[in-house]
Structure formats: structure tokens, C-alpha cells
């Protein structure tokens, strides 16, 4: 069932929803970009639809609600531990189609990858509903169409703001009352999806083992500065590392945290004894790219990357992930045809 609202009417919907949910949406943070007077779009809580940035793709993804950048898991004293408190209020997250596809990847890694589900992930995940932000245009550097993430019907409701009107398609019965009571006219509403992204990519079906040490990765050893931005903005990167912190005054009391980790940043492959498994940035790039468009597929049957294009946009060295996939494909062809 669809509704068309004026902005003020839709804010009434949000007001009612806020009785039970917090609304987590992309927000333009003025002046918080890398450089003086540059902005960043990242997720935060909103009360009014005007506070959400719905035109441009967010620089950082929604994933911070499910896997916070830094999260205290529990506190410990000599003989006891206590799980850290968390905000248990349910959340509605506004996100684009590509990101809704990314949720499936996060679920796969945290709740569908081995015998034990991730308890901390699950307790957050169970309280989250997803609302779709329609896409009026292709995002810069996106290749969602070729990754098959440009469309979805897995949303609680959709939002398309066009010419000052808010178009909603509501699927979730639990939320229906909030939408019905706010005025607005009933209509058939279809969320907007893009059918042509900025870039076209072709993924290799199979990657022969020779590619592991292929010179194509050397370029990235020279270009990449291993800052890890591509990982931190990626909606499907799930890696974390653990910090055990002992409060300095005491030394026997402390907390365990987990923080996002990046396979590009130093330290990721350090192991006991001082061994570093992937030293060069080219090796790290190879690991990341193949995991996103090949290795994950080998294990789960579909690719990890959703083609949102954030990693291309954020890279300070202008390395294009999309272009790397195409280079990989071309190189695979070369190598297999020459055998």
C-alpha cells in the first residue's frame, strides 16, 4: 500500500514511529570532512525527514548501527565480567537498495558462517528494520547494476522525495498505522531504482591460482597508502579486532572492546612470533578484491561486493575498485587463454 505526503505530514509519520523506534539515516555533517570546509555524510539519528540526506549517497554506510566502529563488549574485574549495556530501543534504518543487499552479507558473516552466531551482532540485528531510500540517479562511481544490487523488495517501507512530496510504499504491517494516521493520500507507489549505474564491471567466473602472484598487483603496492578508507566505508566489510584494556589506575580491572579492522591497514595479518602474512599493499589489495568478487562467492554462492562505489569515491590515491575488477577480469582472460 502506498502513500503520498507533504513533508510536514511525513514528519508526523516519523513522530509516531519515534514512539517505538529510533530513526537512523544518512545525515550531512557540515565541516566534518577531511579538509577545511568539506562535509561528510554519515549515519545519525533524525526526527525530521529534512535532516536526512536523501539525494547523495552517504560516505560511510549504515553498517555502524550493526557493527559499531568501536564497541565495548564487557567489563571485567578479578573474578567477574559484566556485559556492556546497550541501547535496546528498536531502530529503523533508512538506506539504499545496495545497502539492503549489504545487510544480507553482514548477516551471512555474523550469523551464517559456522556453528556459532555472533551474540553481539544478533542482539542489535534483531531490533532493526530497514526502510528503502529510492534512487533517483546513479551514485558517483557506482556499479550496483552489474552487481545485481540496484533493486530490492526487502524493505519495511520506502521513501522517495520528489518535488517536495514524500512517496512511501509500506510493506510492514506493524508500521502501517503510523502511515495511515498521518494524512497524505493513498496511491500506488513504486520506489525508484536505477537501471544504469556509472560503471560497468565484469567479474571473472573463475580465478586461476596463478593470479595469486600476478604482477598486476604490483601497481597497487606502489599506489596504495594502506589507509583502509575503502574498508571503513564499505557496507560489506565485517572485520573487527579485539582490544583488552586495563584501566591504568588499577591494572586488574578493564574492558574488552571490539573495533572495526581493515585488511589494508598495518597489523591486520600480524601473527604471534612476528610474522606478517601480507606485507605489501599489492598483496593486501589482492586479498581484498578477490574476497569481494570471488572468494566469498566460492563459500556462499554470491559475491560480497554490492557495487555501491563508496570505496572508489573515498580513496585518497584515486584507486578505482571497479576498474580493478575489470583489470582482474582481463588478466584472467589473458592468463587462461595463454595456457
Amino acid at each position: 500500500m502506498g502513500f503520498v505526503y507533504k513533508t510536514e505530514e511525513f514528519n508526523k509519520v516519523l513522530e509516531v514511529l519515534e514512539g517505538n523506534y529510533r530513526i537512523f539515516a544518512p545525515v550531512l555533517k557540515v565541516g566534518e570532512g577531511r579538509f577545511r570546509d568539506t562535509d561528510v555524510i554519515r549515519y545519525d539519528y533524525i526526527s525530521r525527514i529534512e535532516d536526512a540526506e536523501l539525494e547523495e549517497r552517504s560516505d560511510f554506510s549504515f553498517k555502524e548501527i550493526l557493527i559499531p566502529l568501536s564497541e565495548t563488549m564487557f567489563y571485567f574485574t578479578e573474578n567477574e565480567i559484566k556485559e556492556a549495556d546497550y541501547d535496546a530501543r528498536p531502530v529503523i534504518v533508512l538506506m539504499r537498495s545496495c545497502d539492503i543487499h549489504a545487510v544480507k552479507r553482514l548477516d551471512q558473516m555474523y550469523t551464517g558462517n559456522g556453528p556459532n552466531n555472533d551474540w553481539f551482532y544478533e542482539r542489535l540485528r534483531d531490533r532493526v528494520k530497514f526502510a528503502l531510500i529510492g534512487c533517483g540517479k546513479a551514485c558517483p562511481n557506482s556499479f550496483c547494476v552489474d552487481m545485481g544490487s540496484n533493486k530490492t523488495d526487502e524493505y519495511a517501507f520506502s521513501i522517495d522525495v520528489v518535488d517536495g512530496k514524500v512517496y512511501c510504499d509500506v510493506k510492514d504491517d506493524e508500521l502501517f498505522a503510523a502511515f495511515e494516521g498521518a494524512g497524505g493520500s493513498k496511491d500506488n507507489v513504486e520506489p525508484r531504482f536505477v537501471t544504469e549505474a556509472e560503471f560497468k564491471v565484469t567479474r571473472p567466473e573463475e580465478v586461476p591460482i596463478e593470479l595469486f602472484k600476478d604482477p598486476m598487483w604490483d601497481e597497487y603496492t606502489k599506489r596504495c597508502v594502506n589507509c583502509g578508507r575503502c574498508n571503513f566505508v564499505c557496507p560489506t566489510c565485517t572485520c573487527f579486532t579485539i582490544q583488552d584494556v586495563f584501566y591504568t589506575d588499577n591494572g586488574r580491572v578493564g574492558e574488552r572492546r571490539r573495533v572495526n579492522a581493515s585488511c589494508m591497514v598495518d597489523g591486520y595479518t600480524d601473527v604471534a612470533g612476528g610474522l606478517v602474512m601480507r606485507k605489501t599493499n599489492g598483496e593486501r589489495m589482492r586479498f581484498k578484491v578477490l574476497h569481494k568478487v570471488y572468494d566469498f562467492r566460492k563459500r556462499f554462492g554470491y559475491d560480497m561486493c554490492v557495487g555501491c562505489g563508496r570505496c572508489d569515491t573515498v580513496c585518497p590515491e584515486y584507486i578505482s575498485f571497479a576498474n580493478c575488477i575489470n583489470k582482474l577480469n582481463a588478466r584472467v582472460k589473458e592468463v587462461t587463454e595463454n595456457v
Partner: protein
Amino acid sequence: MNKTTTDTNLKKLKKNAYRVSKVRGETASRVRCPGGEIDVDSLQRVVDIARKYGKGMVNITNRQGFEIPGIDLKDVEEVNKALQLIIENRNINQEEYNGGYPASGTRNVVACPGKQLCPFANYDTKKFAQEIDKAIFPNDHHVKIAFTGCSNDCAHTRLNDFGIIGMSEPQYNKDRCISCEQCVKYCKKRSVGALKVVNGKIERDVNKCVGCALCVNYCPTRAWTRSKEEYYRVVLLGRTGKKNPRMAEDFMRWADHDTVKKVICNVYAYLDEYLDREAVESKEHIGYIVDRTGFEEFLKYIMKDVTPNPKCEIQGRIYWGGKRYDQNNELRNSMWRFSEREDAVVLKQGE
């Protein structure tokens, strides 16, 4: 070879921003571009003047202007008319329409590219430079002012009477910090090493931090952001020259825009009062005047009616370094003259 030269008032010519050439009968027009910024129409006009009245060559000056050499003294009036477009486009204070540039005892206000272009800049250097230019020009007093976006000091503000260095106060959101330690690494390698990791989060030594905001540039998660406020370090009375070249010394840090502007504008009353009237061409570096009057008296003048912002820290007394050539012209270790070293011959041969 000798040209017939007309009766020319050179004093007046210099006050009209022309340089007296060593070639008799010729002069050079000095085109001042506040903040080192020029639009393409003005630049084209510089080219046109150099082609028509000069020798088809233009000098780029040390203080971000242009100098068009080889102009015949009899063409000065025509050149002044041609300069009008530049003067208007560059928003230069002018005394007489079509009269060319007014004199600049006060030198062109220099600026690095600033935040319009440079990833490291903490404020709009050009805009601030042009604002100051509007406030102080034209003026006969010999004052050098430069604006630079960060502590890299690409504008060499430390060789100026007033050097304005941009600062941002880094804001830390610990919830976004994953302790990748890139801020720590870059602060140590490219700045002063004011950051360290304590229990998985970053501690900033607020006294050591110079406000360059490198940590903000290199933070991959937006845990570090710049303060909304733009701050400035003010350095004073650096100079080059024969007698006692020296670097400018710190006067203020974390000063705000209004404080900086007032302090700069206040210097002219001090110069009106204490300039040596016997000085050659009525020109003296401010620093030598301060040497005579004492820093306290200088401070009294430049801080007149200034209410510094609460965060601003001010140095009460300043001591400058640099070599005093009027006292000692010896090489610092003259007993180790290169020519007297035993291995000098070998070194000269490059072996």
C-alpha cells in the same frame, strides 16, 4: 645610446609603484596582486602592457606581484590607464581614477593557496589577505604581512613583520576511533608528535599540538574533525636584510580573526609615532624601531582596544635571534675554514 629624458619626479614615480631602472629613461611597473591571486583578464592585461610598452617580458616578484620592465618614462601615464582594469578587478584601493597603483611602502600582502585549493590549509588565506589589504592600503610605512594556511608555512610568513599561520583545534570523537594509529604516525612523522595511544584511544598533548590538523586529514573514520572555529598563530617581526636577518617569533596562538586583524591595523599608529624621520627614504623595518622603543611600548600600541578571544594565548615578552652582522661578520667556525681542512683537496676532487 643615451636617451633624451624629460624632467621626471622620481619620488612621485616611486609613490606610483614604479621602480627606477638602472637603464636611464626606463622604469618598471609593479602590479600588486593581494593574496597572490589574479583573474585571467588582469593577467592578459599584464601581458598586453608588457608587449606594448615593455620588452615582452614580465618578472614575477617575490611578493606575488608582477613587474613589467623596460617601460619608457614617457609612457607612464598611458600604462597607468591600462592598469585601471587590473586595479578594479583586483579591488585595489585607489586615490585617483586612471592614476595607476598608489605607492606601497607597505608591501603586497602575501598568501599561500589556502583552503580554496590546499588539502592542508586551515582557512581562506587569500580572502583574509585581501581583507587586510583593503584595511591598510595605500600606506607609506614599510610593513610586510603574509598569510599561510598551516604550520608548513609555505608563504614564508616567518620572514615577515606579521606572519599569520592557520590553526584548527582537532576535535576527537572517541566512539569513531578504532586506533588504527595513522594520526599518531603522521603527527610524529610530518608534524610535532603530539599524539599517543592510551588504552586503545588517542591522547592529544594540548600544549604540544600546533593545530596543523594533519590528524584530521589522515583519520580514515572521521574520529578527528576540525573545529568549526578557525584559529591563527601570529608571529612577529621576522626580516631579511644586511644588519640582522632573523625569523619571526611566536606572539599569539589560538587567536581569532578579529584579534589578528586589529593587531595588524594597530601597527600603523606605532609607526606614525616612532618612525625615524631621518631614515633613508623614510623607510625602516619595524623590528629596528622596536629595538629602540622596547617591546613593551610596541605591545602597548598593537594591543590597543584589542580584546583577545578567550582561547587566545599571548606571549608577554619576545626575544629574537639571527646573526648581528653589524657586530660580527665572521663565519661561525672560522677556524674550520674549508680551505684549511686537511682533506679539502680530496673533497674538492669529489673522491
